[in-house]
C-alpha cells in the first residue's frame, strides 16, 4: 500500500463515524432488508398456505396465518395415489428423480472429463475442428431437436409404455457427456502442470491410468462445482420429464405440476403449496450447505466465457 492510499484509508476510517455516513449506512441496510423481504416473502407465503385449509387459502378475506396449523396437505401428499389425486406417489417421484440423477451424473461427468482431458492435454488431431463441432451443439435449443428425438424414442418403444423404459429418454442422452461441462473442464485443466502427466508417461502409465490417477484428483473442485449444478438442473427440470413421463415414473417436478393440473377445476391450493415446499426444500438445504461452491462455480462460468 502506498503512503497516499494509507492516508486515504485512515481518513476513511475516521470518516466512518460521521453522521452522514451513519445515515447512508442505515438507508442502505434498510434497502437490503426490504429486498430480502420481497425475496423471501413468496417462500413464507408458500409455507404458510400449505398449513391452511383450502377454504382459508381461497377465501376473499386475506389472512397471513392459518386459523389452525393443519398438516392435512402433507398427509395428503403421502397418499396421492390412494386418494387418486395423482398417478404417482410423492416418494416414488422423488425416487424417480434420484434414479435419473445417480445414473446420468457419474457417467456423464466421467465422459465429459475424459473428453476434456483429450482436448486439454493430449495430441488430438484436428483438435480445433472437433471442439468447434461439439460446441456448436450448445447453440441448438433443446426444443428444436425435441420432436425428432421424441419420434425416435417412440419408434424404439421408450415412449408411452408403462415400464421403466420411459425414463430412458431422460437418461441415455446424458451418458454421452455434457458439452458445457466439458468446456469448463478443458479451461480448468489448462492450469494443470504438464510435468505430472509427463512423469506418468515416463513411468509407462496408460493414458486412462493418468486420467484416473493424476487428472481426476486435481480437478475435483471443478467436478464438485459442475456436479452440483447438474444435480440442481436435473432436480428442477420440468420440460422433458413432463413430456416423456407418466404414471409411476413421474419425476418430482412433473408430479408437482400435475397436482395443479389435475385439480384445475377446484384447486387444492394448500396441497399444491405443500408439494412445492417439499419439492424445494432439498435444493435449498443443499444450496445453504454448499453455497460457496454454487457461487464460486457460477462466478467462474461467467468470467471464463
Amino acid at each position: 500500500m502506498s503512503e497516499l492510499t494509507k492516508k486515504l484509508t485512515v481518513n476513511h476510517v475516521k470518516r466512518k463515524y460521521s453522521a452522514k455516513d451513519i445515515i447512508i449506512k442505515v438507508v442502505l441496510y434498510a434497502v437490503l432488508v426490504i429486498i430480502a423481504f420481497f425475496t423471501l416473502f413468496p417462500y413464507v407465503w408458500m409455507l404458510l398456505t400449505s398449513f391452511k385449509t383450502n377454504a382459508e387459502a381461497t377465501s376473499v378475506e386475506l389472512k397471513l396465518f392459518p386459523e389452525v396449523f393443519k398438516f392435512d396437505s402433507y398427509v395428503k401428499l403421502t397418499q396421492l395415489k390412494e386418494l387418486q389425486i395423482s398417478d404417482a406417489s410423492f416418494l416414488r417421484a422423488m425416487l424417480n428423480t434420484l434414479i435419473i440423477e445417480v445414473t446420468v451424473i457419474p457417467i456423464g461427468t466421467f465422459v465429459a472429463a475424459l473428453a476434456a482431458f483429450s482436448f486439454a492435454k493430449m495430441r488430438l488431431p484436428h483438435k480445433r475442428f472437433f471442439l468447434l463441432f461439439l460446441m456448436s451443439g450448445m447453440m441448438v435449443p433443446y426444443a428444436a431437436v425435441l420432436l425428432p428425438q421424441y419420434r425416435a424414442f417412440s419408434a424404439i418403444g421408450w415412449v408411452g409404455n408403462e415400464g421403466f423404459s420411459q425414463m430412458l429418454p431422460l437418461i441415455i442422452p446424458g451418458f454421452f457427456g455434457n458439452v458445457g461441462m466439458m468446456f469448463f473442464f478443458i479451461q480448468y485443466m489448462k492450469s494443470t502442470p504438464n510435468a505430472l502427466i509427463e512423469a506418468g508417461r515416463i513411468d509407462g502409465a496408460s493414458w486412462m491410468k493418468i486420467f484416473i490417477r493424476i487428472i481426476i484428483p486435481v480437478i475435483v473442485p471443478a467436478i464438485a462445482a459442475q456436479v452440483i449444478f447438474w444435480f440442481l438442473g436435473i432436480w428442477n427440470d420440468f420440460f422433458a420429464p413432463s413430456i416423456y413421463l407418466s404414471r409411476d415414473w413421474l419425476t418430482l417436478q412433473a408430479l408437482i405440476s400435475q397436482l395443479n393440473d389435475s385439480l384445475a377445476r377446484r384447486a387444492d391450493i394448500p396441497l399444491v403449496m405443500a408439494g412445492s415446499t417439499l419439492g424445494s426444500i432439498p435444493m435449498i438445504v443443499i444450496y445453504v450447505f454448499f453455497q460457496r461452491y454454487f457461487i464460486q462455480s457460477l462466478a467462474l462460468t461467467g468470467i471464463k466465457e
Partner: protein
Amino acid sequence: MTKSNRKLYTKEKRTAFAFITLPLIGFSVFTLFSLVAVLVFSFADYNTYRETFDFSKPFQNFVNLFTNDTYSNAFFRSIGNTVLLLIGIPIGMVAGLFVAALLQSKAVKKGSKVFQVLYYLPAVTSAVAVNLVFRYIFNPSYGLINRLFDADIPWFSNEWLIKIAIILKNTWSSMGGTMILYIAGMLAIPQSYYESADVDGASPLRKFFSITFPLLTPTTFYIIITSVIGGLQSYADAQIFGAGAAGSQTIVWFIWNYGINQGKQGLASAASLVLAVFIMIVTVIQFRYSNKWVYED
C-alpha cells in the same frame, strides 16, 4: 522422430480420439441428426395422429405457419409474447447490478454474505414451484395481490397483464443470478482504479458509472446473451403460470402444443426450425461482436 516415438504418437492420437468418441456420437445423434430430421419433417405433411407422412406439398408447413390464420395467429402471437417477455431481462439485470453494487459498497460490510445467500435463493428453486406460488399470488379471485389491494385485476385473462405478471415473477427469480455474476465481475476490477479516483475526489456514483459499469461490460454482455438464449426457450411460464393462456404462449409452448399435444409434427418442426435459427443468430452475434462490444484488456 524415431520409429518408436512415432508409434507412441500414433497410439496417443488414437487414444485421444477414443476419449472423445462418446461426446462425438452423442452430438451427432442427438443434435446433428435430430436437426437434419427437423429439417426433413418441416417439409413434410407429418401428423402422428392421422399417421400421414408425405412430401407432396413441401412448403405447406411454412405457408401455414406464416399465412394460414388458424396457425399463423398462434405462431405470431407466440413469437411476439416470447420477445416481449425478454423485457424482463434488463429489469432483472438492473436489479441484480443494483444489489451487487450495494453489497460491494464500503458501507455494507457486515452481513453482506448473508444477504447474498438470501438473494440467490430463487435461482435454486424450481421453475415449477416458483410458477405455482406466483400463480397463486396473482390469482384474480383469491390471490394475494388482488386481495391486498381489494382489486379485480384480470391478471390471467388480459394478454398484457399476464405478461406484466410473468415479467415481475422473472425479475424476482433472475435477480440473484445476475447479482452473483456482477459481484464476481466487480471483484475482478483492480482496486488501484478506485484508489486513483479517490485521489481525484470522485463521488461513489461517479466511480460507479465511470469505472465499475464500463469495466463490467463483459459480464453484462454474458448475462444478456445467456438470458436471451434462455428466454427464447421459455416454456414453464406458459405451461404452468399461464396454463396455456393466449397472452403467455411462447414459441416452445407452441412447438409442444402442436408437435406433442396435437401431433402436427411437420408444422411444429417448421416452428422448431425458426426457433433454432433465432438462437443461432443470437449466438453468432455473441461470437462476432464480443470483441467489439466488450471491454477486455
